[in-house]
């Protein structure tokens, strides 16, 4: 290992799945030999979104639900930076749902790690977009009345080239998913199941632990139909692993001048070069 990522003391609740996700993130970055100054962690608001305060990296801790837009801006400005979006199920699928859909359309080269605990933690226990129908919460006291979003299925129908699910309780497996997502050239979604020890008394550590299983060795992640079946499997059994992967041209590479030149941030412009624009108006 060439570099060791420095950690800071978190303010998460004891037993929170975020600790294990942080451990996996640290290991993934260290094993990929990416230095802290080469990676930017972009987040919104929520417990998951505090990640860059607890591990030393470049960080853009922006607004709730708005982690993806700055991540796109960062990638277009400096293609040499590894950009990771880290936010919860609320920020990623609720408040930021529109950006999620359009990030897939762009296929911008970012890894999107969604800390999915199927509940709102920081705001104290309301339903999230992934909370099950009928589940009782602090706000939905007589049960949730809307269908949960199915993020992996949604990503597949939108044409995402990298769709995966992980579990915070299986660190080595999560590290391998994170590494593959970071190295994938394009938009990579990893929905990470994690328990919320305070607010979600249904989807507990044991609940997940008893349901998750690794996709079999011979699973073909290039088969989209099969991936769709696995994406919708969220019942007694929940598959984890890379459900779907496909090589696609990234958004950045669709701009010839970005693909074939230095990062935009490194380019100088002499204002006099723009003087020729006057000819258009003669």
């Amino acid at each position, binding site marked *: 290992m060439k570099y060791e990522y420095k950690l800071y003391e978190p303010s998460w609740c004891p037993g929170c799945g975020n600790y294990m996700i942080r451990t996996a993130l640290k290991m993934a970055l260290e094993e990929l030999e990416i230095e802290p100054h080469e990676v930017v962690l*972009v987040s919104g608001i929520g417990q998951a979104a505090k990640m860059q305060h607890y591990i030393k990296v470049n*960080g853009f801790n922006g607004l709730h639900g*708005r982690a993806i*837009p700055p991540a796109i801006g960062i990638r277009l400005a400096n293609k040499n930076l590894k950009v990771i979006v880290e936010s919860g199920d609320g920020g990623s699928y609720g408040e930021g749902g*529109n950006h999620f859909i359009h990030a897939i359309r762009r296929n911008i080269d970012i890894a999107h790690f969604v800390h999915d605990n199927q509940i709102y933690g920081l705001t104290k226990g309301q339903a999230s977009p992934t909370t099950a129908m009928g589940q009782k919460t602090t706000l939905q006291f007589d049960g949730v009345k809307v269908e949960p979003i199915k993020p992996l299925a949604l990503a597949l129908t939108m044409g995402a080239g990298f769709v995966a699910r992980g579990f915070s309780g299986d660190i080595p497996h999560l590290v391998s998913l994170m590494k593959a997502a970071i190295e994938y050239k394009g938009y990579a979604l990893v929905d990470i199941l994690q328990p919320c020890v305070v607010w979600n008394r249904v989807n507990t550590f044991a609940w997940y632990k008893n349901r998750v299983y690794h996709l079999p060795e011979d699973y073909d992640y290039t088969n989209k139909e099969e991936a769709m079946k696995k994406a919708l499997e969220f019942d007694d059994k929940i598959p984890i692993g890379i459900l779907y992967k496909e090589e696609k041209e990234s958004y950045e590479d669709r701009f010839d*001048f970005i693909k074939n030149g230095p990062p935009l941030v490194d380019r100088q*412009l002499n204002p006099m070069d723009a003087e020729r*624009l006057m000819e258009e*108006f003669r």
Partner: protein
Amino acid sequence: MDYSVLIGGAAGQGMDTCAILLEKTLKRCGFSVYASSDYMSRVRGGHNFFYIRFSDRKLYSFSPRVDLIFAMNKETVDIHRSKLKENGFILTQETIEDIVTKLGNPKVINTVGLGFILKYFGLPMDIAAEVIKEEFKEGIIEINLRALEEGYKQSKNRYSLTTFKDESILINGNQAVGVGAIAAGCRFYCGYPMTPSTGVLNYLAAHSNEFGIAVDQVEDEVAALNMALGAAYAGVRAMTGSSGGGFALMVEALSLAGMIEVPVVLINVQRPGPATGFPTRTEQADLRFMIHAGHGEFPRMVIALRNVEDAFYQTVRAFNIAEKYQIPVLLMSDQHLADSVVTVKPFDFTKVKVERYISGEEEVVDEEYKRYRFTEDGISPRILPGKIPGQVVLVDSDEHDEWGHITESDEIRTKMVDKRLKKYEYLKEDIQEPWFIGKDKPENLIICWGSTYGAVREAVDRLIEEGYSIGALIFGDIWPLPTKRLLDFGKMAKRIIDVEQNATGQLESLIREVALMKPTDRILKYDGRPFSGEEVYKRIREVL
């Protein structure tokens, strides 16, 4: 000499083409041109028209008193007949119908009309022929040249105008902002199409490959400013733009820009509100909104653009100020400035200075870089992520400590608020006083801002010729509000007349608030149509 032509018809009839050809031809004849468009929010039908005014002296406004009307349908005649000067002429569709039929393509009505108009004013045909060759695609040049000639033959000279050497450019406000952004080294622009701001997005997209500018059509305006902030954080000059409704969606991110101290430039090309309002028309009713938008207290600068030259130079300046103070700089334009096509001297690119204020390793004095290090002027040295091994850049929307880490400390909170607001004090050093035009020590002082400059200028010139003691202050920098000139001239004036395109006198109330000075009269307009010099003149006369 000072003439004005009105071209009108239904959307989709091709008046835009006719207007562009005539504007370019007049420009190349060496005239000063001021063309204003009046269009509806629809793609086909309705009634749209252009005022194209031209003169041998510099023009600052359009004229609703016209010498010739080119009416592509009967409705145009009915609506605009009253605007015709006494000896004016109406060119109707019927007059040239036979020629168009003979040429066998209804679209050439535009070029037949162009030929007719040129001959009417006694202007040469060859300049227009050159313009046609440049503007049209290969296959249709020939038929349009014939149409031009036929129209020319059909017409009679009413005037015999002399042409001059052409040294100008013909440009509108949105294009001037686009050119300014490119000259300033803008590398990122994003936006969601919204009239009348779309022209800036279009212009930069068209030059994206040539100048290496990433242009993104975003899913919504919420994404727009957040995305621009990401690009700016990574170290490129970034900009976004919209009209009032789109800007409303950017407001949370504007507050974020203030908090994380990432420099960004934003333009609001105003149209009348509230809500959807008048999508294709003009107003100056977002002044208070632009100054106050965003929760919490943070520094920003607001600059109103007064004409196309100002649009170019102030856009460049906006990028420099944004980076110097690490604040959002908001530019304000409006539909009238955005869409009016005018002749001006080519912009002077030697005046463009790109000042980035980005720090290198030598300025990282702490073992671990502090993005929000406390300094005397509140501005912390800015390094870029990925550029200095071992150092990371952390920006945070939460209240944060000097490193950018989330904090709950009351002491740090107070110091951070002070740090951010301190930048206001230093920013005041860069504030430009309003332009002044008119008589020394005027008894009557006009105050106005932004694109009303042209109409006010024309009115003031005329009133001075008539012997009035009058002058005008035209605000460009509007927040923080410069007050020196205002107080100096205000003390001398007997009458202070506020001229604005809104219903509540937003600049006037700002002046009362900041300069403790009360204008005596207000001339307000909020019908969605721009002030002409003529209208401002008449309304000032009513007050004096």
